């Protein structure tokens, strides 16, 4: 959907009629006919998306300059983390409580104003965001909406498909559904995971999931099988480590099938079709569709020539498509930084620093960033990939001779499993307190 001025106004107009009914418990809607939520008085940053990127951007703008008003718009009252959701799927976590955060402390301790609404449009010229509950004006906008799925590229994919073949690539109901399906499957059943071509959210995520589902089958349903169908020609993340884990721990249960792109699904029959010729059927099918920037970024014309991801300046994360709009997290093209929660956190801080500098007419600062992704390979061992990033020639690049993957002899894997849990605790605390 591309947005022109007229359809934008239509959206806003349509929204105002549902404003009062639609946001019970939400912020008070001003009495004006345009249903502006919280009229802007001073300088204001609006942030879209209360996930790994958006929460941090909102908090850090406030920490850096408390005279700037920050409004964070998020559709859900609680956020459920994708990181560690594979633990839940593999039966290593009782429920999703450790992965769930709210926004009360961001509001109370940092003065971030929360608006729980779905953003439906952005008018870059008028500098106004439209939600179902009304509009919000901004001086600068930070967009961190995560990903949505390119399901139109998959023949046979309908609105019903995820309820039969969960993607579990956004944490919550889908995560619970996949675990329920695994639990309901009899011993001797077959599980199929299908993953898309890069770039997609969390490069090592599908391989970690394969390890933890294989671990579940090995311990609970040892006669079962797991197949990972990878659209990529080879393992795209931590290859020597994952390959070793599969060989050493899950031999006989797990099969890795690279270079097979699923083009069609038949959810009723739990069947995936590769390039129109080869069928893969499973008792449980976890189909992870190809991805692009969250819908709102596409609707607002923030995506680049590939129509999928948002090009940005490597220092400020300002969109190269629209002035005064910054894009971070999975939705952004951040050079060598992968689409991960850690990257989103790191990008958010760089973006907040430079948004505040720009709003105060101060000099901006070059990016220094980090990404570390931990992946569990069993119930007691984890591995990691680390990177340190800086800007060279206008691009985000990895600092030479730094970063890399854990030792291949797994000598650190038990310790990293312990550190990974503290990582989760720290990053979720950063987001929520």
């Amino acid at each position, binding site marked *: 959907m*591309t*947005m*022109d*001025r007229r359809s934008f106004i239509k959206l806003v107009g349509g929204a105002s009629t549902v404003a009062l009914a639609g946001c019970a418990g939400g912020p008070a809607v001003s009495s004006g006919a345009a249903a502006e939520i919280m009229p802007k008085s001073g300088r204001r940053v609006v942030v879209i998306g209360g996930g790994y990127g958006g929460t941090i951007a909102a*908090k*850090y703008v406030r920490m850096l300059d408390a005279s700037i008003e920050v409004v964070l718009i998020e559709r859900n009252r609680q956020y459920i983390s994708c990181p560690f959701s594979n633990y839940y799927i593999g039966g290593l976590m009782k429920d999703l409580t450790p992965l769930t955060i709210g926004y009360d402390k961001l509001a109370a301790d940092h003065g971030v104003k929360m608006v729980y609404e779905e953003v439906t449009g952005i008018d*870059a*010229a008028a500098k106004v965001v439209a939600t179902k509950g009304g509009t919000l004006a901004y001086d600068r906008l930070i967009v961190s909406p995560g990903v949505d799925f390119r399901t139109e590229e998959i023949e046979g994919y309908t609105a019903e498909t995820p309820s039969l073949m969960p993607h579990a690539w956004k944490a919550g109901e889908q995560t619970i559904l996949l675990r329920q399906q695994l639990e309901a499957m009899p011993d001797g059943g077959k599980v199929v995971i299908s993953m898309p071509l890069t770039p997609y959210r969390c490069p090592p995520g599908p391989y970690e999931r394969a390890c933890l589902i294989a671990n579940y089958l090995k311990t609970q349903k040892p006669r079962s099988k797991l197949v990972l169908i990878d659209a990529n020609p080879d393992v795209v993340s931590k290859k020597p480590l994952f390959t070793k884990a599969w060989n050493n721990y899950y031999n006989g249960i797990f099969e890795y099938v690279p270079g097979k792109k699923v083009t069609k699904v038949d959810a009723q029959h739990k069947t995936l079709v590769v390039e129109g010729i080869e069928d893969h059927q499973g008792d449980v099918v976890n189909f992870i569709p190809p991805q692009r920037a969250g819908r709102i970024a596409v609707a607002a*014309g923030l995506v680049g020539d590939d129509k999928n991801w948002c090009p940005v*300046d*490597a*220092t*400020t994360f*300002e969109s*190269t*498509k*629209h*002035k005064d709009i910054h894009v971070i997290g999975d939705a952004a093209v951040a050079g060598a930084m992968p689409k991960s929660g*850690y990257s989103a*956190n*790191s990008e958010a*801080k*760089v973006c907040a*620093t430079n948004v505040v500098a720009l709003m105060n007419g101060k*000099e*901006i*600062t*070059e*990016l*220094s*960033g*980090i990404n*570390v992704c931990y992946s569990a390979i069993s119930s007691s061992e984890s591995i*990691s990939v*680390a990177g*340190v990033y*800086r*800007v060279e020639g*206008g691009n985000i690049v*990895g*600092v030479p*001779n*730094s*970063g*890399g993957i*854990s030792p291949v002899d797994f000598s650190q894997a038990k*310790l*990293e499993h*312990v*550190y990974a*849990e*503290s*990582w*989760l*605790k*720290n*990053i979720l*605390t*950063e987001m929520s*307190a």
Partner: protein
Amino acid sequence: MTRRWSVWALATGALAMSAAAHAAPPTAAMLANACGGCHGTQGASAGPSMPNLAGQSKKALVEAMKAFKSGERSSTVMGRLTKGYSDADIVAMSEYFSKQKPTAYAQAVDAKKADKGGMLQEKHCGRCHVDDGQDFKDDAPIMAGQWLGYLQIQMDEYISGKRKMSEKMAEKVKHLSADDMDAIAHFYASEKMGETK
């Protein structure tokens, strides 16, 4: 609309170029912010095995990071990360974290062990981990309020030889059992430092 947008795109492109030209090199805060995903906002760790950096002595931080970078100190991830920073970056980040308000999250410790540890540390460790570990001397880090989980990992690594001790510290540690060392960890973790969360 499309035409107006492309005009902005041009304008933004120009802005981006000039912005890149005028960007200052990363400040201490820019460098240090990136560490927060693991060590907590401004180095106040909420994770029981991830060390607090906030309020730590600058010298101890510099020495720790240089030792990670050279490989002299064993690590899971810090070796890989510190290779991405110059010595000047390391000094800048250390200075930054040393100036942050120490913040200790509430943690559960065994009071009996802490009592025993308190007595042991005074005799064996207090020469360097001065003031019951609440202050630092030379390269020795502040211990008070550090996470128990982290201290236990470090004690294990010292005892197993994976992490090397200075000869002088080894001289003291060799008189102690693993249980003694654990008791001392409980003592240090039990101490309140700065703001408690």
